[in-house]
């Protein structure tokens, strides 16, 4: 057998393995968000998660893929595997948006935005940074290093969410005169399950982004990427737990999980390049940032029920910078330029698109609908109809 054939086979198989892990993130996001919102909004949040996977993936397959990469070809592993691998990413960035505006967003306008983001906005960002690169040789060319998308996926989702929060506004009754009304998560086991499905999916996300496992060097790289990814998650969880305990003598499990996810986002930009110990630092800082960012965004009245801004935007930025700080061959300036350009582009385009959609289909459910719950108003199906609601 030819060596190239061997490589083709192995890398196709490995890509399929990675895809599978990444698609576990679909129920991962769904469970995480279903657990974090109130019971009256659970069916709606889940419907949105399914809708995003379906609409964004199809939009990317039919339109976005070509915008991002120009052509469908691949010689080193099966084209179908490569397309599907890229397709598996697109929903993630939109999930970040939908999570942050949950409990008041309506499904129809969000579906329209999902289509536009999956077909155009996200593919354009990919084009700039990983793909065909239409900006090459202009002064806007992005030379940022970003293995698996600290910026391209996570900040992009975060910036779009920021735009969405400005358009959609906060949940009914969240910011009152007497202060912020605390709205606790309704189902903690689902939050944990979702977070770990995301965590495991991340191995495919980052490991698969190495692109090949079919040489001794790349096999090493993939394995190192995965162990480093995991380490940053571990440390994000630990630091969030430690900070919470020091301040409150209590372990807030949702914050610990957000800390872990923050660490995972942060390490994503360069998990393949760090040695075994750097991800510890990257994760500690990432988890710490989450703990401080969550109450901060509440002070700014950016109402984000799942902590998506803190996890994805803040740590997407931190992770992209960290690559420039800890890896000598990566220019911190190039990283910074990438962060800023992606931020400006995504935020402004998303804002305009959201603004226009909002003229025709209001994103925000009115107060009465929010009071009854999005499930009854948008889905007609309650999530837990037989379970009696407590006061």
């Amino acid at each position, binding site marked *: 057998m030819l060596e190239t054939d061997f490589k083709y086979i192995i890398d196709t198989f490995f890509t399929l393995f990675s895809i599978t892990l990444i698609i576990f993130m679909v129920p991962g996001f769904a469970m995480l968000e279903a657990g974090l919102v109130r019971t009256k909004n659970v069916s709606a949040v889940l419907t949105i998660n399914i809708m995003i996977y379906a609409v964004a993936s199809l939009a990317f397959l039919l339109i976005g893929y070509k915008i991002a990469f120009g052509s469908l070809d691949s010689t080193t592993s099966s084209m179908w595997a490569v397309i599907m691998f890229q397709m598996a990413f697109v929903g993630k960035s939109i999930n970040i948006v939908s999570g942050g505006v949950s409990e008041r967003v309506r499904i129809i306008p969000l579906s329209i935005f999902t289509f536009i983001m999956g077909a155009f906005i996200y593919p354009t960002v990919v084009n700039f940074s990983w793909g065909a690169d239409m900006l090459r040789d202009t002064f806007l060319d992005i030379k940022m290093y970003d293995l698996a998308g600290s910026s391209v996926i996570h900040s992009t989702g975060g910036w779009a969410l920021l735009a969405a929060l400005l358009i959609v506004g906060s949940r009914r009754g969240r910011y009152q005169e007497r202060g912020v009304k605390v709205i606790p998560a309704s189902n903690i086991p689902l939050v944990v399950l979702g977070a770990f499905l995301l965590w495991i999916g991340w191995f495919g996300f980052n490991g698969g982004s190495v692109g090949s496992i079919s040489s001794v060097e790349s096999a090493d790289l993939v394995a190192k990427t995965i162990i480093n990814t995991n380490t940053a998650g571990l440390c994000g969880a630990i630091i969030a737990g430690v900070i919470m305990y020091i301040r409150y003598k209590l372990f807030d499990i949702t914050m610990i999980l957000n800390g872990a996810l923050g660490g995972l986002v942060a390490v994503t930009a360069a998990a393949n390049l760090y040695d075994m110990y750097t991800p510890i630092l990257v994760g500690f800082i990432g988890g710490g940032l989450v703990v401080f960012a969550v109450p901060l965004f509440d002070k700014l009245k950016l109402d984000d029920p799942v902590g998506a801004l803190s996890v994805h935007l803040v740590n997407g930025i931190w992770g992209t910078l960290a690559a420039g700080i800890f890896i000598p061959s990566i220019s911190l300036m190039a990283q910074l330029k990438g962060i800023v350009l992606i931020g400006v582009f995504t935020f402004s385009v998303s804002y305009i698109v959201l603004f226009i959609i909002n003229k025709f289909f209001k994103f925000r459910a009115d107060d009465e609908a929010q009071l009854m719950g999005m499930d009854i108003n948008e889905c007609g199906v309650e999530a837990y109809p037989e379970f009696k*609601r407590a*006061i």
Partner: protein
Amino acid sequence: MKRVEAVIKPFKLEDVKDALAEIGITGMTVSEVKGYGRQKGHSELYRGAEYVVDFLPKIKMEIVVDDENVEQVIKTIVEAARTGKIGDGKIFVSDIEKIIRIRTGETDSEAI
């Protein structure tokens, strides 16, 4: 002593409780109930079949007070719980013959 029972809309609980606290009422017992009345339930959809949910979630508050406070309590509840829309609920007043505080054994007005 009287028992004032109010069936109200769930999201008004907080307001009513605060209003009662302001007039010095600090004891009450609350439960979730389902109400059936003029306010009609919403219809839900399940697998292509629509159906009506008859019973609406309500909160029942029970406040036991001395006779002289009854009117003020009623007034306070009515003001705090009213939205003007159908289904705001009702207040029922009935007689209580005896009260005992379990912890101390105090009775009647002292036990409220």
